[in-house]
């Protein structure tokens, strides 16, 4: 590693860092959208977060990854707000994970998931901006021999108030970088914000309209080769045999690489030739120990868990078992939610350059530091001899976080070709067959109603897969996976149930089929909300009470949950009848720190569903960019309703059956309803916005379908049911 004390000086020129390792390609690499490589010798950074060039350009460093969710713009707004710079001069760049490690993790976590990009880092990024502002003001004051207290900063200009003298950030940035940073800074009250909290346009749009935006699949490095990969499609299976010689002389082929006992790659001059040869490569798979596993066998296993005695208790109040045993009016229903694939539009990919001294990887990643760890492990090198160059993601949705399988593969291939950059791109088929699937669960809901139709006791038994057990066992609590209970906790800022139920038990019978699970946008809040909110509708119906009124009676102690629910009910006109032939449904939940609700209007004609209109409300506490929140909410309906209508990865012979968008269908424009978004920040907390709304999309629509047809859909996706 060469000098890393100044990221800007290092200039993101690979050669600078790589030279020490014996590589000196010396070419510029594309980084974030809109980021410009800092030429060597440019003025030093003011601090880790802020670089200001003599031409007044303000470069704000962003540690989290942009994958479409707008975090790049939102985080820049927070820094710029405190910096008091001119927003029109703002651009952004990513520091590398290697630089972060070398600087004692000055940029904090790089992880981008759990709708945490902004809510976990707002404080220290704002402080970063505020500290830089103080240093810039101090530098200007020093030039004037004036006390800093007599100077003010606004829009990138420092004014000495008594004399009216002014100077610009660009003029004093170099001096500022040598000032001692203040130990403490005061942050603005959000009510005084002028940049944050405003519906500003994204910083990364222009290049996405012309084809200039570089994604991982677009990367070009001098002398680069291309690789296509196939891993055994049967989970736990391996390669029984393959005949590399059969494809060795095909056009463009350079090498067949056995990555491990289940995975093989072909390297060629172009990706198309690599893929063509890989498809022609004779491979015999050993189907391994899971060849008998199918969707039906998994469903049986989970079903057994619904009635099992042993279960991890998540939430408990009073004594639900005793209350249910006392009888009364009991309603019970079983629900099921299938495996889903993230299906990012950009398939998994990574480009690696390996030498025995150093390894560098260019990759669209939600967690640069996880990519770095994976690269170092695969390369067999210490982390300080590796680095990751993050590239704009063509979608993430959780697939590109924990799971760095494509990074490990790319490095393993590059290790076979030292000194040659290799770009690995997965085919869509590979992406479908080797996902980190939304876990599969079932739930048995049992509730009792008193004579007045009030819900008095509820038992929710979840049976199914734990994500943490598979991917983050250190997060387990005595064998229990707390993430299973997302949105169902009795209390807590991340997400708690909005209903007061006297006797309540929510427990989980863990059943882990051999299909790898992962964090899929919305995670367990998705199915938990379907189970709870559809069952609330069932209970209301059984009680003969309006679904809104039924919920409201249970929500008196949860005013923020209630506020978003009331907001959507009011906007959709719940107290008035819907248009002829149209029916309505509701859902609410708290998750990822935010309160969300949705109301849907649908019609079903000759068995054909049409979703006419969605109203969605979000209370994220503080709001950083309402325009981006709107987009996240709207996008959540595409993601959530794609899953509800079509999403299902089925299993046969221990492998996934769907291989592309012809069998793994997703929602398209024709089915997209109008979405009206109500953003209603109540202040006082920081909630996420990228995920929670997905959870209410499906139950609002399912409840509306019941209202329209009297059909209660309890297993997804809808395509498997007739609504006629």
């Amino acid at each position, binding site marked *: 590693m060469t000098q890393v004390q100044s990221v800007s000086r290092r200039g993101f020129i690979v050669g600078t860092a790589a030279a020490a390792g014996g590589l000196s390609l010396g070419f510029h690499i594309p980084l974030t*959208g809109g980021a410009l490589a800092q030429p060597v010798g440019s003025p030093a950074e003011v601090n880790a977060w802020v670089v200001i060039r003599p031409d007044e350009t303000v470069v704000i460093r962003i540690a989290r990854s942009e*994958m*479409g*969710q*707008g975090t790049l713009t939102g985080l820049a707004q927070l820094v710029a707000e405190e910096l008091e710079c001119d927003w029109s001069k703002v651009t952004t760049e990513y520091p590398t994970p290697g630089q972060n490690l070398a600087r004692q993790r000055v940029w904090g976590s790089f992880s981008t998931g759990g709708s945490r990009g902004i809510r976990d880092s707002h404080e220290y990024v704002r402080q970063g901006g505020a500290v830089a502002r103080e240093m810039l003001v101090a530098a200007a004051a020093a030039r004037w021999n004036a006390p800093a207290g007599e100077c003010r900063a606004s829009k990138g200009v420092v004014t000495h108030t008594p004399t009216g003298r002014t100077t610009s950030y660009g003029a004093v940035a170099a001096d500022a970088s040598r000032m001692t940073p203040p130990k403490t800074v005061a942050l603005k009250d959000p009510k005084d914000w002028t940049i944050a909290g405003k519906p500003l*346009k*994204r910083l*990364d*749009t*222009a*290049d*996405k*309209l*012309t*084809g*200039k*935006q*570089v*994604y991982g*699949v*677009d990367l*070009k490095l001098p002398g680069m080769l*291309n690789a296509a990969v196939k891993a055994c499609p049967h989970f736990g299976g391996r390669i029984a045999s393959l005949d590399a010689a059969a494809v060795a002389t095909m*056009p463009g082929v350079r090498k067949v690489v056995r990555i491990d006992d289940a995975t093989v790659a072909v390297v060629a001059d*172009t*990706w*198309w*030739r690599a893929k*063509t040869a890989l498809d022609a490569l004779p491979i015999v798979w050993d189907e391994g120990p899971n060849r008998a596993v199918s969707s039906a066998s998994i469903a049986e296993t989970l079903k057994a868990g619904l009635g099992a005695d042993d279960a991890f208790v998540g939430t408990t109040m009073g004594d639900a078992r005793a209350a249910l045993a006392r009888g009364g009016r009991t309603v019970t229903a079983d629900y099921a939610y299938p495996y889903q694939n993230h*299906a*990012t*539009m*950009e*398939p998994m990919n990574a480009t690696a350059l390996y030498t025995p001294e150093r390894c560098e990887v260019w990759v669209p990643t939600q967690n640069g530091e996880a990519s770095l760890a994976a690269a170092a492990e695969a390369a067999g090198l210490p982390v300080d001899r590796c680095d990751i160059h993050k590239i*704009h*993601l*063509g*979608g*993430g*949705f959780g697939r590109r976080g924990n799971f760095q399988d494509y990074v490990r593969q790319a490095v393993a291939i590059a290790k076979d070709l030292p000194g040659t950059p290799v770009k690995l*791109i997965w085919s*869509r088929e590979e992406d479908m067959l080797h996902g980190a699937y939304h876990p599969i669960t079932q739930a048995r809901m049992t509730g009792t109603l008193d004579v007045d139709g009030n819900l008095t006791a509820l038992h929710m038994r979840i049976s199914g897969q734990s994500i943490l057990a598979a991917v983050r066992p250190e997060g387990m609590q005595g064998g229990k996976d707390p993430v299973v209970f997302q949105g169902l906790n009795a209390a807590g800022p991340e997400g708690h149930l909005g209903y007061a139920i006297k006797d309540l038990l929510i427990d989980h019978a863990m059943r882990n089929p051999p299909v790898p699970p992962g964090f899929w946008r919305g995670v367990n809040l998705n199915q938990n909300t379907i189970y709870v909110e559809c069952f609330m509708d069932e209970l209301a119906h059984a009680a003969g009470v309006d679904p809104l009124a039924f919920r409201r009676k249970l929500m008196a102690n949860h005013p923020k949950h209630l506020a978003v629910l009331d907001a959507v009910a009011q906007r959709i006109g719940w107290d008035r009848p819907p248009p002829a032939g149209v029916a309505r449904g509701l859902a609410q939940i708290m998750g990822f720190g935010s309160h969300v609700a949705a109301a849907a209007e649908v019609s079903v004609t000759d068995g054909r569903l049409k979703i006419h209109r969605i109203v969605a409300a979000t209370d994220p506490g503080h709001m950083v960019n309402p*325009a981006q929140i709107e*987009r996240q909410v*709207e*996008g959540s*309906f*595409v*993601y959530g309703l*794609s899953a509800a209508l079509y999403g299902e990865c089925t299993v046969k012979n221990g492998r996934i059956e769907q291989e*592309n*968008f*012809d069998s793994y269908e*997703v929602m*398209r*424009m*024709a089915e*997209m309803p*109008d*979405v009206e978004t109500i953003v209603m920040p109540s202040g006082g907390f920081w909630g996420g916005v990228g995920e929670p709304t997905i959870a209410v999309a499906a139950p609002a629509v399912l409840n509306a379908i019941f209202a329209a047809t009297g059909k209660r859909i309890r297993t997804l996706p809808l395509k498997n049911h007739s609504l006629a």
Partner: protein
Amino acid sequence: MARLTINGEVRDVDADPDTPLLWVIREQVGLTGTKFGCGIAQCGACTVHIDGVAIRSCAMPVSAVAPEQRIVTIEGLSPDGSHPLQKAWAALDVPQCGYCQTGMIMAAAGLLQTNPKPSDDDIRAEITNICRCGTYNRVRAAIKLAAKGAGATQEG
């Protein structure tokens, strides 16, 4: 060897005849604005124009394109991002991750060629590209905005 006319330039490329046009554009010609999403004509990320008609280039072998046919990619839609659709897209801040957006814009440009004033239902029926981030409603609004403005005509 194949001879192609891409964005007004004649290019000789060294590609096997059954190579999809998509991969010739991306790898031999080096224009990476045209994206790979599925490879089976399902998603539209690879949409380009041939003689003004939007097609999915992943499902078209390069040998099926004649040298004189005019191929236009996103890079050739306008010299500087000033096509009415690109301007409308910028005005409404349409893209999220952006990966599908060049294909969306090319599909929309194809639609406006044949139907300069499409209704909402026309757009819903004709634009079948996949966007996983969920930009559909803003795509539709941007197409209508572009159609309202000055003539959104094909270039190249």
